[in-house]
């Protein structure tokens, strides 16, 4: 039966008009960007897209992109009060600053250029490479083997995650070109989607390493902003890291994971000193000066220290560790 529903993101009582300062910039005509202020009455459930469309209906020449208007095409991403959002899905706030999605080249006003992003995805070969020729429709597939792939099909490539990633932010600000070393979460989701398709035969783990997946800091910022709730970190990047442990065991990433698990199995808790030594071997000696300082403050434990009942842990690890 009809029941009261409130707007889930943003508590708007609608008594005040909605005010927005919107980024305006035409690179062919303006020396620098400016902000234009608009004010409109609130409409029930108002999304940012409603607001932008109303502005145009009143005669403004504000340029913004949108197409489906229902969170499927991923075209309408903008930055609202510093947060990357889909304008069709996000509620307005009473005071807004609306800007183009951060860190993408601006075409005009709120319209960004995706060609750089598209090129990075293309380099990851985002199409199925079949290991065997297609046998005909419908092919033998079971959902439990396609589950991970299916969950990543939700991604609409809106680029909100690319915009918020702190590693990309860091690299962009350092380099003069717009290309970064770390490829970023969105292309990795596309890569992972294919990696988890059992029909795919490409060594996607190697591609992920080339894309510098190890630079991901697991901060969950991408997860937090994803408008369609793709579990980017856990379902894409972490599962790719799992693949790397199997397909690329000599990579630092794989050695790190193996070392961590071995120490856990051996001692129950993980000693960072042992971890560095085990992962990096002689290369760890580069950290010696710092290690000595830390040793003096009692932060470096050299002896093994096992937790009580370690056998209990070992019974679990022997069953469930992958890369054995």
């Amino acid at each position, binding site marked *: *039966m*009809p*029941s009261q*529903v*409130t*707007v*889930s993101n943003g508590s708007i009582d609608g008594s005040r008009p909605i005010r927005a300062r919107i*980024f305006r910039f035409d690179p062919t*005509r303006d020396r620098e960007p400016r902000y234009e202020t608009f004010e409109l009455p609130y*409409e*029930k*459930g108002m*999304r940012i*897209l*409603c607001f932008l*469309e*109303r502005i*145009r*209906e*009143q*005669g*403004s*020449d504000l*340029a913004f992109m949108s*197409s*489906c*208007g*229902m*969170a499927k*095409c*991923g*075209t309408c991403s903008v930055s609202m009060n510093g947060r990357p959002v889909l304008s*069709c899905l996000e509620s307005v706030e009473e005071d807004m600053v609306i*800007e183009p999605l951060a860190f993408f*080249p*601006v*075409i*005009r006003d709120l*319209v960004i*250029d995706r*060609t750089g992003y598209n090129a990075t995805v*293309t380099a990851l070969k*985002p*199409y199925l490479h079949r290991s065997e020729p*297609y046998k*005909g*429709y*419908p*092919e033998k*597939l*079971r*959902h439990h083997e396609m589950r991970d*792939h*299916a969950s990543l*099909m*939700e991604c*609409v*490539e809106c680029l909100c995650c690319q915009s918020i990633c702190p590693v990309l932010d860091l690299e962009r600000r350092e380099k003069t070109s717009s290309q970064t070393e770390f490829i970023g979460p969105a292309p990795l989701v596309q890569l992972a989607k294919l990696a988890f*398709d059992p029909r795919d035969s490409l060594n996607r783990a190697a591609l992920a390493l080339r894309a510098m997946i190890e630079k991901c800091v697991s901060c969950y910022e991408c997860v937090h902003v994803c408008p*369609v709730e793709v579990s980017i970190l856990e379902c894409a990047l972490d599962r790719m890291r799992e693949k790397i442990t199997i397909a690329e065991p000599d990579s630092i990433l794989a050695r790190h994971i193996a070392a961590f698990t071995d120490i856990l199995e051996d001692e129950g808790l993980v000693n960072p000193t042992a971890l560095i030594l085990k992962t990096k071997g002689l290369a760890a000696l580069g950290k010696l000066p710092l290690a000595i300082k830390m040793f003096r403050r009692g932060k470096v434990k050299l002896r093994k220290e096992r937790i009580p009942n370690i056998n209990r842990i070992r019974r679990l690890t022997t069953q469930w560790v992958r890369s054995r």
Partner: protein
Amino acid sequence: MSQTARITSTKSRFGLQEAVNDHLSTDVLVVGGGVAGMYTAINVDRLGLSVLLVVKGLLGKSGVSPQAGIFTFPPEYTPETFDQMVKDRIAGYAYFICDQELVRKSHELSPRALGDLEDLGLYFRRYDDGSLVIASMGGIQGGEMKQPWGTLATKWGNSGRNTCSVLRSEIVRRGVKFIENATITSVLVKDGEAKGIVALDYLNGKLLTITAKSVILATGPGASIWTYYSGSSENTGDGHAVALRAGAELSSMEMVQWHMACLAWPYSLRRQEAYPFPLPPSQQAPRFFIGRQERFMPDAEVGSKALQANAVAQAIIKGAVNRRGGYYASYQHFSTKDLKEFLGPFLMLKRLGYDLSKDTIECAMSIYSIYGGIRVNTECETKIKGLYAAGGAAGPIIPGLYMSLATGIIAAESAGNRARAIELPDLDLEQAEREKARVLNLLKVRTANESSYSPMQIKKILREVMWEKMDFIKTETGMKECLERLRAIRLEMLPKMRVRSDTTRFNVEWLDAVELLNMFDLAEVVIASSLMRKESRGPFRRADFPAIDDKNWLVFILARMQNSSITLDTAPIELKYAKPSDRFEWKH
């Protein structure tokens, strides 16, 4: 809040070398970057011909295709059940206003198209035991059909988007050339043959002429000439309008289909359906209520769109609801687990604050699609040589992914055959220059003292007039008023149309202006055709002629443009596979 230094975009066109004098040529030109356009382009490329794809928005993201929910698919079918399904589609969806041969042919091509998509990597949802997940799709009698046929999907509500993603990857993989942010303004026809097009590259503020042996219009069903529509905002029927102006026929443009259950609010989400179809695995559909108790269309809940629209129409007539709202969808009888797993818009509804285990969703109507379109034969050819139509732009058909895919095969073959047989035509350069001048002329900048309207302001008025007067249940008076009003707007407001900026960089107003003129032509045809059809049939309803009239109106209504005015004609419908006697008792 300041922005860090930005690199401004120097994007021009992806995958192309700079054209000389902005002139390009290709064997086959495909206009439209949705499923029909992309699949056609891929098939042409497979023939070894040169193909160029012109997309108004972004490839694989623009158009109505990303919004498509499901594939219509017969489960294991015998020749008998296939025949039955085709009958049901013709009777229950198109209400006999369709090219029956084309409908049948399109369904025959489904397994091939679905196999092609699966080969490219598209995942049709399975169960853990490997069987395909299929939702039943009750037919004309809403579940009383003895042989319900099914829908399959990647996820119910998401199939279009996933299909676009796979096709886009294939386009890129094959290196098929495409131009984004460019819209067709005219088809250049000479001596009854299409020679090419003029297009506005609004990203760079350039007018392009493109010569082609074959031109395929895959521009979508043109539904956004009403205030509340689904499909993309880009869907302004450009293909219909340019075809009309080039001398082609449009057919059955009065056959407009409505969504009966979209979100009543907010404004921009009226596109989103409260997905009124059976969902796997329970095969139940959402229930619809008026007020608190009255479940007002239990049969139609699992029926076709037209059946549902019919039920809502009855409720509107009774005064119980209006098309702006007042009726509610309930998912309370579903498990949250099933909804999360299979219902595409689940997340969107959650973000709006709905708890589907407790809340009901207020619904309202919006335009789904125009079933009519650019008239084609079973080879997707129009009457103009070298001009083809595919997908929702073609008509009269029952739109859907199956149809976009099927015409993507048919049109590619037809256009390809022609391209192999002829030389690249010579464009009439004068004709092209005149067209360019026409489009350039739309870019008049407003001055301080004159009263003027932006193209979008006029667009909005056009949409509102259509919404008010070309309602779901039409009257002759209303339609005539609509026509007059639109003509008046054209006369009075168009001359005062001004843009704020004549920038060459992503000029949205210029795009609006081009689209607006197309929308006027399209609207006029829709209204004129509606006035002509003096009956009610399926989704086409008139208060002054409430009954179906097969005796007089089992015909196609054809529209042509001659000397800038619309003339109408009729043509008989060949009842090759289904006849009205195949239809059960009509429930009006």
